[in-house]
């Protein structure tokens, strides 16, 4: 499935202060930024938050900074639509505050993903999910589920692209009704193969609650 190569936020290895920062600090900074832009929905706060993310991306290195504009390629139309809607309903200041704040939160979350190995993120998730043991849910399995989910998003996006290409190659104009069936089949097949791979490697056998 070609779509595997479309990644949301894959680690860019590095030794910058952002890369070396402990996970708790990254999460604390991410939470602080998100709470600030949610509470204070003004254009100035949003602009400040966006500038902060640019600064932090730059601090993480040239390769990471080069990825800052990437979400605008695929989601730019959505941001523009939301901004227009907010401007029309609530005025310019709110539009910039809401959409700018949203983009700042997205970028801050991406920075965590781009500068933290997934294994470290999962270990952090396992620590956070420890209370789930009280309801007989294994934190390791919970974290692995998140990892598999993250892996699946680009795979599904890729299968949509594959099916669109296959339709175009046969002279058909891709439309949602045409794509839905084959994409669902490809997704179920991907899920089966992932399940087989996890089972074959005995990854799920490690759960203490199996």
């Amino acid at each position, binding site marked *: *499935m070609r779509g*595997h*190569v479309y*990644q949301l936020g*894959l*680690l860019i*290895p590095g030794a910058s202060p952002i890369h070396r920062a402990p996970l708790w600090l990254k999460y604390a900074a991410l939470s602080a930024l998100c709470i600030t832009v949610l509470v204070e929905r003004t254009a100035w706060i949003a602009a400040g938050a966006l500038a902060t993310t640019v600064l932090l991306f730059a601090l993480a290195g040239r390769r990471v900074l080069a990825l800052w504009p990437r979400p605008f390629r695929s989601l730019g139309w959505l941001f523009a639509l939301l901004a227009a809607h907010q401007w029309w309903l609530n005025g310019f200041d709110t539009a910039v505050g809401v959409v700018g704040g949203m983009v700042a939160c997205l970028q801050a979350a991406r920075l965590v993903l781009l500068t933290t*190995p*997934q*294994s*470290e993120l999962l*270990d952090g998730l396992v620590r956070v999910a420890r209370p789930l043991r009280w309801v007989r849910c294994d934190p*390791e399995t919970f974290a*692995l589920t998140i*990892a*598999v989910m993250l*892996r699946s998003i680009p795979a599904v996006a890729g299968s949509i692209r594959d099916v669109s290409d296959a339709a175009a190659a046969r002279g058909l104009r891709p439309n949602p009704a045409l794509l839905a069936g084959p994409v669902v089949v490809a997704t179920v097949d*991907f899920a089966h*193969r*992932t399940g*087989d*791979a*996890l*089972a*074959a*490697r*005995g*990854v799920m*056998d*490690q759960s203490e609650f199996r």
Partner: protein
Amino acid sequence: MDAPAPSEGVCFHEAAVVVPPDPGAVPGSAEARERTILHPCTLTLRERRVAVIGANGSGKSTLLRLINGLSRPSAGAVTVHGLDTVRDVHAVRRRVGFLFTDPLAQLIMPIVVEDVELSLKATHRERAARRQAALEALARFGLEHLAARSVYDLSGGERQLVALVSVLAAGQQVLVADEPTTLLDLRNTAKLRRVFEGLPQQVIYATHDLDFAAEADRVLVVDEGRIVFDGEARAAIDAYRRLALGGGT
């Protein structure tokens, strides 16, 4: 559970796989009938290299999946080193690694070393030790330079080798590989075959590459769910050619 005995090898005891009729299937269709994917077979595999050859849909993959417990026999039993693949499935999977045709389907984590680490979670609880063990596993195959790479940026051959390291990282004693070279070009196929040759593990693999099959100590020919030939590589390949091109075994 008795102590596992590697000398017992991989044993099929009248093992069969039958798919029951699908109650929702269209009457008269293949799914509406009971289908035998693998007819009862009894054999013991102790050879270092065992190849399984046969046409698409002949039952090769089903035969291999029984060894790792990915498929359960409908009748009979399969044992690995004396461990039952149904009753002792978790112990069996610690001994048997399974390599799929498409390495991307089995690489779960986005970075090479992280994927190898995933296989080591059960044996290495501490992260630093796990990372070290993963790097050592990659180094054993000369792949340490790929450790920090994204699995999506690797070539097909590199991916298959990384998948192999991930599968064997926890010290599996048997490797089962389902058409591991099918998606590889000639160079990577040759490379993987060299790696296979050097593995200390018992390797049981399905392949359409008859040169690859010829390197095995024993070859099984599967046709329509039956093992129709079991023996030395050259004779088995000749039997398969006769079967595929007409004339029977």
